[in-house]
């Protein structure tokens, strides 16, 4: 029920956007995330973008996993 998939915004027209997930395209509403831009990644749930994915934070989280691994090998 809470499943939301990260998808890339290919184009925006008004409050509708074309997104791409794993090679598949579909139209979604960006009414709830009016600040989105082309090439942003958004979380898509029930045909709507509910948040823009913070790519910086995504990288930070991955870095934390790496760091834990590095600590282990010291």
């Amino acid at each position, binding site marked *: 029920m809470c499943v939301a998939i990260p998808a890339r915004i290919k184009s925006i027209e008004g409050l509708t956007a074309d997104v791409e*997930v794993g090679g598949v395209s579909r139209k979604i509403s960006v009414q709830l995330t009016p600040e989105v831009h082309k090439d942003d990644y958004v979380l898509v749930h029930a045909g709507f973008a*509910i948040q823009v994915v913070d790519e910086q934070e995504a990288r930070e989280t991955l870095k*934390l996993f790496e760091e834990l691994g590095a600590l282990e090998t010291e």
Partner: protein
Amino acid sequence: MKFIDEYRDGEKARPIIEEIHRLADRPVRLMEVCGTHTASIARYALRKALPETIELISGPGCPVCVTSNRDLDKAISLARIPGAAVATFGDMVRVPGSDSSLALERASGRDVRVVYSPLDGLKIAEEKPHLKVIFLGVGFETTAPTVAATALEARNRGLKNFFIFSAHKTVPKALKALLDLGEIKLDGFLLPGHVSTIIGSRPYEFLAEQHGLACVISGFEPLDILQSVLMLVRQAKSRRPRVEIQYKRGVKPEGNPKALEVMDQAFEPADVEWRGLGWIPGTGLTLREEFGDLDASRAFDIRVPLAKETNGCRCGDVLRGLIRPEGCGLFARVCTPENPLGPCMVSFEGSCAAAYKYGS
């Protein structure tokens, strides 16, 4: 897929798991309250990877599972209205009510359609002006804003044949009600990722401040959940309970203000019944008076007899975290995904469905 695959890397899981094992030297009881977490934990066998000192309990996190039989019976009676078409999310279709289910109604010739988005329901209403399209709104704060936006859009387009039956519920107050029952002793909560994308972290602060519980808002991939468990164990050990966000790429402390605004425009809090938890004040969402003409519960006369519960079904106890699915006498014997007796087995996010499919 980007932003998913990287968080499923088994190699990276190992050091996190080892650190958890190292730190969890005394019992830690954590509850997860999100159906997608239930499913992910089962699918990736995360309980097996964690030390025995950590108990990961499933709570009332599946919105389909916590929908009461009474609400189901009402949805079913809506399907029986001549000229009506019920548009619903897929996992509601096979849930048994007192005497029937939407699937059975469909088999009897009623118009029941599965949609991916409430906007699809709107589209049906536009294309078929002779049909009364009733969208069944189920879901927590992740979904409610999408239904609210759809209500606003229906208004904008001047549609007269689109209705919403809201069974929407909100999470934070329900967690308080669960704790107030005093049935289980917890050290912390694994909090829902996408509900929090909408509401942010502040609504949960009372859990840490008033109940001393460790709280981490978690993503859904196995690395996210493992990192969140590690953060929870660290919080519990340091005795510094607070609300942390592990799922930073999807959750900001303030949530999504636009989504909250849209949700507030269309909905207001209501007192509603949760399967397993009973009536919890202020945890439901009902359409505001200004949207009364879109409200199925106002537009149609829905009167149903007293709801009946399935004999032996212990979904309520599973949802309160009192028993695991195996604790129910019907589990896997009479109640299976092919012949589900309760919503916990029907919904792909139900504890029983997850336990049956992936084992415990």
